[in-house]
C-alpha cells in the first residue's frame, strides 16, 4: 500500500488512492493545527474576553437580545444582531432619530440620568477629574444585597468592554459582572462605597454608544423585572400581572430557595 512496504509498486489506482487519503489526512491535521495555533494567538492577545462575550450573546434567547430602539419604543420589534455593539450597527442612526415612546419611570429604583447603563447591570459615570466610575446598578444591587465576597481587578489592569469586570459571591452563587467599557483600573471601591472601579479611558476609546441611556432605561428595566418575576415564580404557578410593588433589598436572602444560579445568569448575561 505504501511505498517501501510489502513490495509496493506504483500504479494509477495507488496514486489516486494515496493522493485522496493523504489529502484527507493532511486536511484533518492542518485543521487541528490551525485551530490550536489560532487559539494560542487568541489567548496571547487577550481576545478571549471578546470571544466569550460573543459566545454568551449567541446563547441568549431572542427575548434578551432586544434592540435598544425597541426598548425605547422607537420600533415595534427588533432583535440585535450585533452583540449590542451599537457602534458598529449600520442602522443605529436611522432608528436613533425616531421619537421615543417608553415609560419614563424607573419602577421605584435609583437610575440617575447622568449615568450610562450596560445590559449586564453595571453603570458608567464620567467624573470631573477625567476618570470614569463604574458600579453595579440598583436592580442587581437589590438582588445581591451585601455580597459574601468581592474579587476586584488589580490596579493598573486593563479591562475589555464586555470582558470580566469583577466577581461577586453570594450564598454559594458565583457571579461575573461584565466590564461595561474598556479602560485601565486606577482605583477600586466596594459595595459600601456604591461603586466598584475607577477607570482611565483614553479619549479615542470614549465611544460608548453600546450603553443604554435616557428613555431606553425604563423599557429595559421593565423587561428585566418581567424576567425576574418569571424566573422567581414558584414552579407550576400561572403567569400573573405585577402588583406594582417595589423590589426589596437583598432578595437573595429573602428567597434563599429560588434558583439564583439561573436568575443571576440572566441578570449578568451569562449562560
Amino acid at each position, binding site marked *: *500500500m505504501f511505498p517501501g512496504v510489502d513490495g509496493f509498486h506504483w500504479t494509477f489506482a495507488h496514486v489516486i488512492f494515496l493522493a485522496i487519503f493523504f489529502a*484527507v489526512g493532511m486536511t484533518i491535521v492542518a485543521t487541528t493545527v490551525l*485551530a490550536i495555533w489560532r*487559539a494560542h494567538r487568541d*489567548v496571547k492577545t487577550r481576545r478571549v474576553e471578546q*470571544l*466569550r462575550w460573543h*459566545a454568551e450573546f449567541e*446563547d441568549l434567547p431572542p427575548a434578551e437580545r432586544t434592540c435598544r430602539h425597541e426598548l425605547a419604543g422607537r420600533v415595534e420589534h427588533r432583535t440585535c444582531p450585533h452583540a449590542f455593539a451599537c457602534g458598529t450597527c449600520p442602522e443605529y442612526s436611522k432608528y436613533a432619530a425616531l421619537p421615543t415612546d417608553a415609560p419614563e419611570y424607573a419602577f421605584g429604583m435609583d437610575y440617575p440620568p447622568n449615568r450610562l447603563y450596560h445590559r449586564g447591570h453595571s453603570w458608567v459615570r464620567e467624573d470631573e477629574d477625567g476618570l470614569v466610575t463604574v458600579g453595579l446598578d440598583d436592580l442587581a444591587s437589590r438582588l445581591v444585597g451585601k455580597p459574601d465576597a468581592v474579587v476586584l481587578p488589580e490596579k493598573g489592569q486593563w479591562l475589555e468592554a464586555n470582558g470580566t469586570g469583577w466577581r461577586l459571591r453570594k450564598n454559594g452563587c458565583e457571579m461575573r459582572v461584565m466590564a461595561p467599557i474598556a479602560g485601565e483600573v486606577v482605583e477600586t471601591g466596594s459595595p459600601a462605597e456604591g461603586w466598584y472601579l475607577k477607570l482611565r479611558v483614553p479619549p479615542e476609546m470614549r465611544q460608548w454608544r453600546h450603553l443604554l441611556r435616557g428613555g431606553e432605561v425604563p423599557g429595559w428595566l421593565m423587561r428585566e423585572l418581567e424576567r425576574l418575576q418569571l424566573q422567581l415564580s414558584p414552579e407550576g404557578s400561572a403567569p400573573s400581572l405585577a402588583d406594582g410593588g417595589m423590589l426589596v433589598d437583598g432578595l437573595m436572602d429573602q428567597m434563599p430557595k429560588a434558583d439564583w444560579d439561573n436568575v443571576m445568569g440572566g441578570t449578568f448575561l451569562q*449562560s
Partner: protein
Amino acid sequence: MASSTLIDRRFIARGVERTGTARFAMWLAPWVLLLGVGLYAAYLCLYYGLNQTNMDNRFAFGLWIFLDLSIIALGAGAFFTGFLVYLIKMKELKAVLNSAVVLGFICYSGAMLVLAIDVGQPARAWFTFWHPNTHSMLTEVTFCISCYLVVLSLEYIPMLLKNRKLRQAPSFLAFEHQLHMLVPVLAAVGTLLSFFHQGSLGGLYGVLRGRPFAFREGFSIWPSTFFLFILSAIAVGPSFLALTTRLVEKVTGKALIPDSVYQRLGLISGLLLAFYVAAKSIDTLVWLNVTSPAVGFAPWEHYSYGQFGIWLMAAEIGLFGLVPAGLLLWPKTRARRGWLMTAAALACCGVLLNRFILTVQTLALPTLAFDEFMTYTPNWQEVATFGLVVAYGVILYSLSYRYLPLFPQEKELAGEVIEEGTHVSGR
C-alpha cells in the same frame, strides 16, 4: 426542579431544566450494569478468542457485523446533517446538528469498538493500515471509518468544550471557537469519507461472486450495492435523528426542536427514501432476471429456505420502504407527529432489515451442490457485546444531553406544548 437536588448544577448550562442528580443516576444504573456485562463478554472474546461466540467458518459475519452496518447507516445523519447545514446552507437544521454529531460519534465509535472485539488483537490494529489488502473493499472502509471517527471527534470536541465549567478556561474557550470556525472544512471531509465508506460497506457484499444472493453488477469497479448503501444511509439518517430527538423529548418532557425541523427532516428522508425504493426495486428486478440466472440460480430459489422467504423482500421494499416513503412525502401524514414518527421508525427498521438480510441471509444460503442451508443464532457473549454498544450509546448520549448544549433552541422552547393538552412541566 429545585436546584438543591442538582449536585452537579455547576456543570449544567444555566436556563435549562435537568432532572435531579439522584434520579439521573438511577436512569444510568441499568445501562451501567449492561455495560459491565458487555465488558465482561468483550473481555472473554478478546482473551479467549472467537470460540467464545457462535460464529464459525461459515458465519464469519454475525450479529456484530449486522450491528456495525446498522449503526453506521443510522449514524449517517451526522455527516448528512453537516453536509446540509454547512455546504447546502440549510440553516434550519442547526437545531439538530449537535445531536447528530453526538449520535454519529456514538455510532462510529461503537462500531470501532465492536470491530476491535470481532477482529481481535486490537494492539495490532495498525497492521491494517501498514499491510492492507489492497484488493479488499474493507481496506477502504477501514481507512475511511478511522479518518471519519477522527473528524467526528474533532466535531464533538467544540461541543464538549461548551460545557459550562470547561468554557471558563480561556484556552478551551478559544480552541472551541477556532475549531468551530473550521467545522465546515471538517463537514466537507466527513461527507467525502462517509460517501466512500458507506458505499464500500455495500460494495463489500456486491463483489461476492461466490455468493449469488449478494452479488450484483454495477458501474465500473462498484457494484450497485455500493450506491444503494449510500442512498439508504442518507435516507434513514434524518429519520433516525427525528426519532431519537422525539424519544428524548418524550423522556424529558420538553420540546427541544421546532415542529418545522421535524417536518424538514421528514421531507428529506421521504424524498431520499422514495428514490432509494425506486433504485432498490430496479436493482432487485435486474438481479432476479439477469444477474442471478446468469450464475445458475433460478430467480426465487434464494427465497426457498427456512424463514428466509419472499416475505422478507416484500417487507424490506414495501412495508419498510414504500410505506414510510409515502407517509413522509404526503404532507398530511408528515404534519401529524404520530405518523411522522411511525414512518421514521419504519424507515429505520427497513435499513436494519436490509443489513440483516445482506449479512445473515447471504451466509445462510447454500451456494454449492454439497452446501446446506444453515442458520445462526448468536450466543450470550455476542448479545452482551451488542448490549455493550447500546449501553455505551445511551450513557454517552445521556451525559451529553445533560451537560452539553445538544439542542440550542431548548431555552427558547422551554414551556412549549409538546403534545395536545399536555403542557411541559419542566422535568
